[in-house]
């Protein structure tokens, strides 16, 4: 069983968190913090398995993580999961995100955490691996997004127009004149 899936950046800011066992919000934040502290002090060329998280699980559980650019993807799993299998699963997850967002970066996850959750829901359900074939996952996601688009129909057009204008909001653009934001704005333009 997978107990939790956490995505956070190099500074420990959560970008996506999914707990398959209930913890209250404070506890969740503590777990993220502890996990970040454990994971972040490790070099990139050491192994991807980590034992000794005290808050979540216990001796039966281990953390399996991968570090991509600015993001850590951490899965907390028990002994019924294959360690190397989970590493592959993280790879599948990230590749799927990459396909969905076209060159995924941290900003995609910041602004579209809901979309990332949808990807995750097709990958893992209730702590168990659901589907590992990336093409199947993409196909499911496309169909669902199509449904959503069909529902929005004509009435969604003005809303999207407004949000596009908002995204172009020049003073704001100037204020956070971070380079990564620009392609984001452009992407938002073409729907």
């Amino acid at each position, binding site marked *: *069983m997978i107990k939790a899936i956490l995505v956070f950046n190099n500074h420990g800011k*959560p970008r*996506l*968190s*999914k707990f*398959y066992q*209930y913890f*209250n*919000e*404070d506890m*969740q*934040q503590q777990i993220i913090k502890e996990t970040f502290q454990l994971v972040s002090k*490790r*070099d990139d*060329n*050491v*192994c*991807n*398995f*980590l*034992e*000794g998280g005290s808050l979540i699980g216990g001796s039966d559980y281990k953390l399996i993580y991968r570090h991509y650019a600015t993001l850590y993807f951490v899965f907390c799993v028990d002994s*019924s999961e*294959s*360690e*190397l*299998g989970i*590493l592959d699963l993280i790879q599948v997850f990230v590749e799927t995100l990459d396909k969905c967002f076209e060159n995924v970066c941290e900003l995609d996850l*910041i*602004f579209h*955490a*809901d979309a990332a*959750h*949808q990807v995750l*829901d097709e990958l893992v*359900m*209730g*702590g*168990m*691996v*659901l*589907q*590992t*074939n990336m093409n199947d996952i993409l196909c*499911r996601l496309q*169909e*669902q997004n199509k*449904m*959503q688009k069909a*529902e*929005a129909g004509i*009435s969604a057009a*003005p*809303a999207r127009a*407004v*949000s596009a204008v*908002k995204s172009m909001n020049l003073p*704001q653009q100037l*204020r*956070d004149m971070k380079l990564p934001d620009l392609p984001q704005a452009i992407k938002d333009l073409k729907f």
Partner: protein
Amino acid sequence: MALKKVKGNFERMFDKNLTDLVRGIRNNKDNEAKYIAQCMEEIKVELRQDNIAVKANAVAKLTYLQMLGYDISWAIFNIIEVMSSNKFTYKRIGYLAASQSFHADSELLMLTTNMIRKDLNAQNQYEAGLALSGLSCFISHDLARDLANDIMTLMSSTKPYLRMKAVLMMYKVFLRYPEALRPAFPKLKEKLEDPDPGVQSAAVNVVCELARKNPKNYLSLAPVFFKLMTTSTNNWMLIKIIKLFGALTPLEPRLGKKLIEPLTNLIHSTSAMSLLYECINTVIAVLISISSGMPGHAASVQLCVQKLRILIEDSDQNLKYLGLLAMSRILKSHPKSVQAHKDLVLACLDDKDESIRLRALGLLYGMVSKKNLMEIVKKLMMHMERAEGTLYRDELLTRMIEICSQNNYQHVVDFEWYVTVLAELTEMETSAKHGAALARQLTEVGARVAAVRGFAARECAALCRRCAGAPPGPASREVLYAAAYVLAEYCQEEAVMRESVSPLLVCAAVGGAHMRARAVCVHAAFKLTAKLLHCYEKRGDLDAAISVVREALAGLRPLLCSEDMEVQERAHNATALLSLLLPRLGATDGDGDLPHVVDGTLVDHEQSNGLEKQTNGENVNGEESHGFSGGLIEELVDLFEGELKPVAPKAQKKVPMPPDLDLNQWLSRDHWSSESSSSEEEADGGAVFAAPQPDPRPTAQFTPEELQMLREARRQEQANNPHYLKDDSPRSYQQEDVPIAEIALEVPLQIQSKRSDKYLISKESSKKTKKEKRSSKKRKSKKDKHSSESDSDDGEESIRRPAVDAGGELPDGAAPSDDEPPPPHDDPHRALDLDLDLPLREEELLTSRIHQYPSPESGLLAKKSKESKKSKSAKKESTEKSVKKKKEKKSKHDKKVDLMLSESTKSYVNEGWLIDDLSKSNEKTATKASDNDKVLIDNHVKSSKTEKNKKSKRDAKEKDSKKKKSSKKDKHETKIGYEEALGISTPSKEVI
């Protein structure tokens, strides 16, 4: 209407959506909390509006805030509203929020039951899929009970996507609602052979999870899995199946034998490392379960170890880690084959990755032998010096102690070396926690190894002097606690004792309040003084005696007003006794110039300490004078006579309760005062207050075998105990080489090496010279004491190490091997421990429940107990018969069922697929059984199901079998009862 909708949309355009929220938070980095509080207010306003789009927007924002750690449980009702929208877009938002924030104990969850049922039965597969995904995160017992049937229906949906999700969902249902497992199991089994690989994989996944906790119930599925394993090419599924086999083989060794070949083939053929690794793991599990005696057994071990070596040597750190992990599993059963790769493991100790170092450390435990222990520990000591990070340091120290002390110090040949290592570790002054661990070791070695006591005492004396000289570090403070004890208890050398009295008393004065060793130091100093006085008395050296008493008294004086109560009290005691002694010494001596005057304050203290004085007085009165203190010194030494022996860990629990002790009896004042102490009257008194109750705890009574065992154990103990005279016990040390006390302790000769290294060096040098020594006959006695020390440790000594006292003291008649029953723990999987091969009962079938709340009769237990009462009278007759037949069948039965296997089982254990003909025929009979029989079968089935119900049945049976039976036997009864029921038709007719 349409206009309103458009208007709503227009309004919405200018609301803050999720993107705006995120952007806003990023722009307000400095006052994030304030900004979010403001947004929360906006969201609350939005949630109050009627427009579902606005609400959905608000809920989406809430979901984001939840991730940041804000509690959103107050919005549960709004989230449910959004979930119940007809639009897929909003449903998605709602279900996402629900899956993130709801949990099984959330309030208002029952509001969702019908909505979720509607979604589950929706036309669109994605709506149903969404509901399943969401539900998997927050399903509760009530939801599971009410929706189990709907989810079961989805398991046979035409759409593979839904089947897959429903199968996985069932696992969550089982966890919350164990009653669903039996009715759903046939379907789950079916899904193992589903045409869609995804569904198959999901079913395998679920069964694996179930079987991990209760493997014995799933043995019957082994053939299906075996087929899947040999045919499937899906690595994900193969991994799961192979893991499952790993869990099953310990229960069925024959399965393991059959598995070895295909697994070995897979190991040779697969290119996927993950699969290879799991195969190796399962082969290891098989090898452990079948122990040895199988052809090709050694070859399999060899293959595994070889493959693992390749993994460990790989440059990929992940593979290295896993390789070490698997190695540690082999280590438990086949230490020899792992030991061959010692070089590899030792190399891993130098790895830069902490995870790998920790794993390698774990392996070291099995790698050490008498020969290489010193080397390995030296290496670890070096790591200890370099190590950063408390976790690794902690682990290092614990492991070091563990590998040295394992199996009653099996690998330690030279205990002087070990004591030195302990002393060096103390000198590193790491932390109090480590100090405590070291202190335990020091005490233990002192207690168990008589031969090293003299040396240990000297080391401890050095430590005490060091602590007295400079304020001790955190580790020393703890170790001092043990050092003071060991020093005072075991020291035999006069010079060492004489030198230690003052330092000990100085130690007692320093260290501050949190040093628990202080009181022990006072006591130890007093003890040493007493021992010294004894020596001097024997020798008649009065001057020395007086000087030591004076020194002790001077050292004790500052402690008389110590802020630590215990230090103060002990100091007073010691002072009182010693100052009583001092005039005696003066008096018997008759030498006028010796100062008789005891410090005035001390006399005061002595007088205030009336009790102490009195007891001392008695002692003196009882003795006729001999020696120069009139027997007082003898008395003093007597206080410390006797050896403290190690106590076995469970000794306290094993103390048998005296049969006449009744803790429930009143300790009534009347009773005590009015009655004299005659036993008759006491018994009467007991009758007045309460009927004498049977002793709640079993007293130890022994069968002849047990007595035999105990005798054997004692003989063993005598063999190990150094205090029984044995001519070969090598403790030349303490008697003969008193004068060389200094050399082992002080500054090492080489500058960079540690003190403990000399043992290693001497060992190596001895190896070189071994041959010539052997040829030149045997060494004659020790003329050079210095060399004798190292000599005695090599050669014969390497084989013949000092005797180590094993075990510990137990109350008379208690056997050390008794195991405690494991404490019960709370695990949802225990409820899932159900027999899946029994036929289903009608009332077990899941029906769609319309009612939201459980009606009283739907409570499972209530129903059962009712029924069991109903059929009790009828059953009684049948059980009587079955008990009779049971005895006949018993012998036959025992052959079939492996007792080890069934130790913890409560229900029928299928013999596994290797003899599935038998179980098939059983099934056939089961189906053949007429409807009339079914009622009776049901009774038996039920009784095997829950513990409680079992009891009710046992009640009926107890009439036949007077004595209470152990649960193991009970299980046999249920099982046999079941088989009986198949054959007997008459009693069942009576039921109807």
